[in-house]
């Protein structure tokens, strides 16, 4: 591990009305690191993930990406978002565009790449996620797992410095979860910096460098998967793990 911070959150706070969803969050993600964020629902893990590219605003604290603080609204923010890919629970592929267009759109419109070049790269990425034969279909014609793999390819098309995954497999049928996780494992092996909010403990064990356990808006534990899963320190984590690992 290079040990060089790529994503750095310090003293981040956010409320939804009275609910304190993020409480003094400090989190550093180094370049090439895979950090899996787990925790019970409502613990603030999705909010944390979305705050990193400012889809959620924060009230206090700082978020730095590659040494630069997150800009306010506007062009600078857009530029920064282009460098951090995001994969959503509900895929969010552009419903009115084909699979290939979905992947090409941002490189052409945001990076001002040439169309043929962007299309070539898009096909490469589709090949990588095993979907090159679906290039001309519309998102609605694909299964959930296929849509999510396209969404990953779309994020990769911007050559991001880091990828954020907000529960990428939670909306999938069980038999499709693995095809998505396999793509993510491959990315992790290739050294992509990733923040993954998930309930897939198998993925956390096998691919994560660190597991961050959140509960009630706080980071309760931040350790290696080995340590976390075999000997959780906090009662909250023990309780959580006993509930999900039992069945």
């Amino acid at each position: 591990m290079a040990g060089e911070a790529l994503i750095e959150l310090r003293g981040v706070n956010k409320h939804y009305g009275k609910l304190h969803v993020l409480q003094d969050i400090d989190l550093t993600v180094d370049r090439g690191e895979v950090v899996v964020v787990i925790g019970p629902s409502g613990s603030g893990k999705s909010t944390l993930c979305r705050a990193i590219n400012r889809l959620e605003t924060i009230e206090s604290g700082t978020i730095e990406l590659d040494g630069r603080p997150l800009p306010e609204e506007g062009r600078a923010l857009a530029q920064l978002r282009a460098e951090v890919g995001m994969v959503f629970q509900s895929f969010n592929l552009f419903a009115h565009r084909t699979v290939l267009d979905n992947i090409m759109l941002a490189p052409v419109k945001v990076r001002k790449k040439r169309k043929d070049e962007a299309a070539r790269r898009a096909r490469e990425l589709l090949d990588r996620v095993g979907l090159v034969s679906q290039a001309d279909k519309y998102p609605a014609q694909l299964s959930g797992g296929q849509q999510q793999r396209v969404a990953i390819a779309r994020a990769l098309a911007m050559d991001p410095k880091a990828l954020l995954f907000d529960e990428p497999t939670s909306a999938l049928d069980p038999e499709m979860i693995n095809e998505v996780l396999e793509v993510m494992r491959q990315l992790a092996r290739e050294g992509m910096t990733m923040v993954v909010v998930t309930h897939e403990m198998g993925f956390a064990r096998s691919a994560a460098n660190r597991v961050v356990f959140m509960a009630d808006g706080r980071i309760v534990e931040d350790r290696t998967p080995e340590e976390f899963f075999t000997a959780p320190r906090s009662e909250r984590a023990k309780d959580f793990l006993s509930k999900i690992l039992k069945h």
Partner: protein
Amino acid sequence: MNVLLDNLSLYAEGLLGTVELTVYASLLALALGFLMAAFRVAPVRSLRAFGTAWVTVLRNTPLTLLFFAVVLGLPRFGLVLPFKLFAILALGCYTSAFICEAVRSGINTVPTGQGEAARSLGMTFPQTLGIVVLPQAFRSVIPPIGSTLIALAKNSAIAGAFSVVELLGVYKPLNELGYSIIWTFFWIAVGYLIVTLSISAIFNVLEKHYGVAR
């Protein structure tokens, strides 16, 4: 029946006037309506406030009052234009408030995730709106915009009261010439039907064409 054949050029002139008012005011209303809808969903507070004020003022002012305000008000500020242009301005601005709300309701039918995905890829607000959200909203706003423009075509009759040549105003000279008032208005009504049914037809085609996508 004779009233039409005897005065064909008068009717034609009136119809042309109404068509002109409708077309130009529609273009103005569409341009302003889309712009104001964009303002109303913009991340900039002052733009949102401007869009809201625009809609509130124009949608809640009676059109006749708005005509008076434009025709009598603007010259006081040194803006003297032909009455026809004033009429287009009044009709266009008035209708833009309704177009804006139709477009905004269309924008609200597009799942928020679409916009979030666009933003997360680094698209600016105008790009997100223009490339991702509006094309998907467009389909659902075609019918209400059609209705709004039909209303505009009929509202253009008010311009006749401000000495702009348009279809309804045709009855005045014909009445003086002693033609049957019923038949005079019958053919005027047919003229309006030609305009409004044409708008319906155009929007039916648009709906069929853009309804297929997705």
